[in-house]
């Protein structure tokens, strides 16, 4: 990246806590979300969902529902005959509504469009579906049994955006497998002084974006318009175009503000069924999930893992062997990518003589699993870091010293052929440890832990942006990043302001409308500041070049810019336009990547009550190793949000399935963190080493803290004497473990 030195006439616009550009709208209730949009003649859509996890559909009769006054149409599998009705960005395995068979409880079987919601709900009750129950594959273990029923029995069809090279055929209920192999693993283990091994369980978790999935669709002829709460508008556009066989440009995706996403609104979700319903209705239709529906639309993968790690007596790490099984539910969703990222994160950023990773993505008769903030890293980091601590305890070494001795250094290769390490992890973990008082004395029931990991971030590096300076000097940025709460519209405005040399208040970043906004791959994988940010920086820099050319010099006051535009065009009109692009060097494949390594480093101090098993979090510290903080306050807020989600994941969040049925499908029974779950102290340390590939040396953040905190709570609890192998750390689980320790004579320590 070449940065042009400009003459500065105003204070820096990056590196400061500029107020959110969307703050005022949001505080005043003016910010528009998909559910606030009313399209003329809009109908209300409701989805009939299967009550059974696995069944053959013997018959569907919608006649009575269609006869209800106010019902405009009912969409069933019978309507899906004139086109290929399967979608899925990774694996094209998902029918718009179930065809012949349902594979999870909650799977759409039919959908109704009606003049109002109450009528639509009444119509759902009037649809007659006869099911013949099939044996339920409720868990990964059941799915892998030799005689397990096959959830999919047709050949695997790759989707448009898996980015995983050539996909192998399914192997039983395994739809994807990720493996890594380095060095002579068995030889290394055979000669190791110390080996720890264990089996671990990670729960399925609900992202709970407070705004549920909401889509309005209108389809006329071969033109499709959707207003959608989606993170990846351009990938939704491509999937809809492929599914309904229309040109890309005929599909218009408009994205207002999102009420949270965290991965739950990545890729395509409720758009296909809403478009199909609107096509049949011939009128715009809105489908808005309830929480119970969003919970079965996508979730975080539950996972089982078997891991062993070897070390010398002196504390040199030798090898790691990992097998893990991700429960992707009935359809792949983003499971293959989650599995690959999890497998990639499994060894951790250490110098190994050998490692082996075998990660499988497994179908069960549960709802599909996809992306959730820091996927893969959150699944594996707590396990790997628990084993490092266990080895350190056995060797009577300080866990921090073991990390100092074995963590990779900046510039060191992490994976064969992949991007070398671009962060100072030893510095990061030392800072986190210091923040929780690592070496200070503590009571017996208090423990401290650190955790270190990396997350392959950035996804595929394709972004573009257009920056327009209007005749009055106001700047409008068109860029395909979705404002999902992370502050992208503020940070990208700061970058444009910095490049052009105007105050950030003069810059507006618009929401995405694929009809006018240039292409951006996606909003996720912590990529917006880094990649969309680079595109905006390049586009804004072109506007500045034009201003300097008109002026004939480089010293420009914001106030004189309108006069320069008028000079260029002769009248009070016209505009300056800059265009910026980021494209991959090489093929851009994930194997050559990642764009950058997102740092997942944190520490925690916890207190355990051995009478109740309750774990109280006293302190957390996270490291935002961001290269350059464009907006330091927003960086901190991102990490704090990740911290709370990490605490939820570590301590109590869990989707409870029994025989394929979700038992806690509401916010009373599925608890998320509230104000009262705040730790006594929560610290976010911003590290700026200008070592990122983004503008001004920036790299993304906001996900690492989740993985780091989840793991640090586990290692801290182990330090207090209670090593755990199953999350979440509910009081009951912790209490039972303490009883076990008492029987073994290791509690109290």
């Amino acid at each position, binding site marked *: 990246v070449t940065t042009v030195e400009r003459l500065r006439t105003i204070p820096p616009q990056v590196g400061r806590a500029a107020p959110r550009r969307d703050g005022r709208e949001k505080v005043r209730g003016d910010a528009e979300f998909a559910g606030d949009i009313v399209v003329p003649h809009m109908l209300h859509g409701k989805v009939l969902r299967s009550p059974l996890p696995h069944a053959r559909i013997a018959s569907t009769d919608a006649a009575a529902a269609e006869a209800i006054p106010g019902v405009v149409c009912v969409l069933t599998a019978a309507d899906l005959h004139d086109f290929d009705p399967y979608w899925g960005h990774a694996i094209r395995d998902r029918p718009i509504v179930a065809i012949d068979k349902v594979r999870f409880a909650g799977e759409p079987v039919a959908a109704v469009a009606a003049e109002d919601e109450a009528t639509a709900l009444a119509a759902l009750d009037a649809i007659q579906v006869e099911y013949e129950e099939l044996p339920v594959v409720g868990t990964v273990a059941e799915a892998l049994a030799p005689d397990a029923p096959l959830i999919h029995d047709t050949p695997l069809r790759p989707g448009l955006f898996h980015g995983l090279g050539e996909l192998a055929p399914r192997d039983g209920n395994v739809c994807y497998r990720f493996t890594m192999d380095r060095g002579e693993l068995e030889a290394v283990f055979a000669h190791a002084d110390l080996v720890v091994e264990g089996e671990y369980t990670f729960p399925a978790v609900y992202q709970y974006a407070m705004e549920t999935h909401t889509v309005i669709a209108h389809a006329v002829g071969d033109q499709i318009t959707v207003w959608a709460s989606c993170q990846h508008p351009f990938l939704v556009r491509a999937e809809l175009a492929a599914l309904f066989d229309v040109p890309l440009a005929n599909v218009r995706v408009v994205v207002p503000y999102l*009420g949270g996403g965290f991965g739950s609104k990545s890729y395509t979700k409720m758009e296909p069924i809403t478009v199909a319903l609107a096509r049949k209705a011939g009128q715009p239709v809105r489908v808005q999930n309830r929480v119970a529906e969003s919970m079965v639309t996508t979730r975080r993968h539950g996972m089982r893992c078997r891991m062993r790690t070897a070390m010398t007596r002196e504390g040199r790490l030798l090898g790691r062997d990992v097998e893990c099984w991700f429960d992707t539910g009935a359809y792949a969703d983003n499971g293959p990518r989650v599995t690959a990222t999890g497998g990639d994160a499994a060894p951790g950023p250490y110098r190994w003589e050998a490692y082996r990773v075998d990660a499988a993505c497994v179908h069960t008769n549960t709802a599909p699993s996809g992306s959730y903030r820091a996927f893969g890293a959150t699944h594996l980091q707590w396990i790997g870091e628990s084993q490092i601590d266990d080895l350190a305890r056995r060797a009577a070494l300080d866990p921090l010293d073991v990390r100092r001795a074995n963590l990779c250094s900046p510039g060191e290769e992490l994976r064969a052929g992949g991007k070398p390490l671009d962060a100072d992890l030893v510095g990061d973990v030392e800072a986190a440890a210091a923040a929780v008082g690592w070496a200070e004395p503590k009571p017996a029931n208090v423990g401290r832990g650190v955790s270190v990991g990396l997350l392959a971030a950035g996804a595929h590096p394709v972004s573009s942006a257009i920056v327009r300076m209007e005749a009055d000097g106001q700047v409008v940025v068109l860029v395909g990043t979705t404002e999902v709460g992370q502050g992208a519209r503020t940070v990208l405005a700061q970058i444009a302001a910095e490049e052009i040399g105007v105050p950030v208040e003069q810059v507006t970043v618009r929401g995405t409308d694929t009809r006018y906004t240039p292409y951006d791959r996606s909003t996720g994988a912590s990529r917006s500041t880094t990649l969309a940010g680079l595109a905006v920086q390049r586009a804004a820099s072109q506007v500045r070049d034009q201003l300097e050319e008109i002026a004939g010099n480089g010293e420009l006051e914001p106030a004189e810019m309108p006069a320069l535009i008028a000079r260029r065009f002769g009248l009070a009109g016209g505009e300056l336009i800059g265009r910026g692009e980021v494209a991959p060097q090489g093929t851009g494949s994930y194997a050559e990547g990642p764009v950058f390594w997102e740092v997942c480093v944190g520490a925690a101090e916890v207190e355990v009550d051995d009478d109740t098993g309750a774990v109280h979090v006293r302190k957390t510290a996270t490291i935002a190793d961001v290269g350059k903080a464009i907006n330091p306050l927003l960086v901190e807020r991102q990490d704090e949000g990740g911290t709370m989600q990490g605490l939820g994941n570590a301590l109590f969040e869990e989707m409870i399935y029994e025989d394929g049925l979700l038992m806690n499908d509401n916010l009373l029974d599925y608890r998320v963190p509230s104000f009262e779950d705040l730790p006594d102290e929560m610290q976010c340390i911003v590290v700026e080493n200008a070592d990122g590939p983004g503008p001004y040396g920036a790299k993304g953040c906001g996900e690492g803290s989740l993985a780091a905190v989840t793991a640090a709570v586990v290692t801290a609890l182990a330090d207090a004497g209670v090593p755990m192998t199953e999350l979440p750390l509910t009081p009951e689980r912790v209490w039972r473990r303490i009883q076990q320790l008492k029987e073994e004579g290791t509690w109290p320590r």
Partner: protein
Amino acid sequence: VRLELSVNGRPVVREIAPQTLLLDFVRDELGLTGAKRSCEVQVCGACTLLVEGQPVSACCYLAADAAGREVLTIEGLREQPDFERLEHAFLEHAALQCGFCTPGMLLTVSALLAEGELTSEEAIKQSLAGNLCRCTGYRGIVEAVADLAGVAR
């Protein structure tokens, strides 16, 4: 049924179905979309409105039960003279991200401030536990509210 009430200081008269929820009434009938629907079980607080100055979950509150009462939504709160203080504190501390919970959060905060209940950081956390925010990690909100309540941190 015929419903007469006051919304944001203005009298409103409408014919409604008796089962109409207050949330649907303000959003669909009156076009006041600042209040949001999320959990529908009185856990999240995104739909919070003030009825006679008291926070209620409008997703579980019959519009008919507000008959003869004063309902305040974010669209009314923002017109009040002291709203600027709330707005400033929330922007200054970056006490919001996606903004979906923010209108409900502000209505709850304004009611609690009016009652003088926010006397410590602990009290702030306890009193606000009926409003969830999935994005911020809460700390920015606690800081903003502590500023507003004059609580030392």
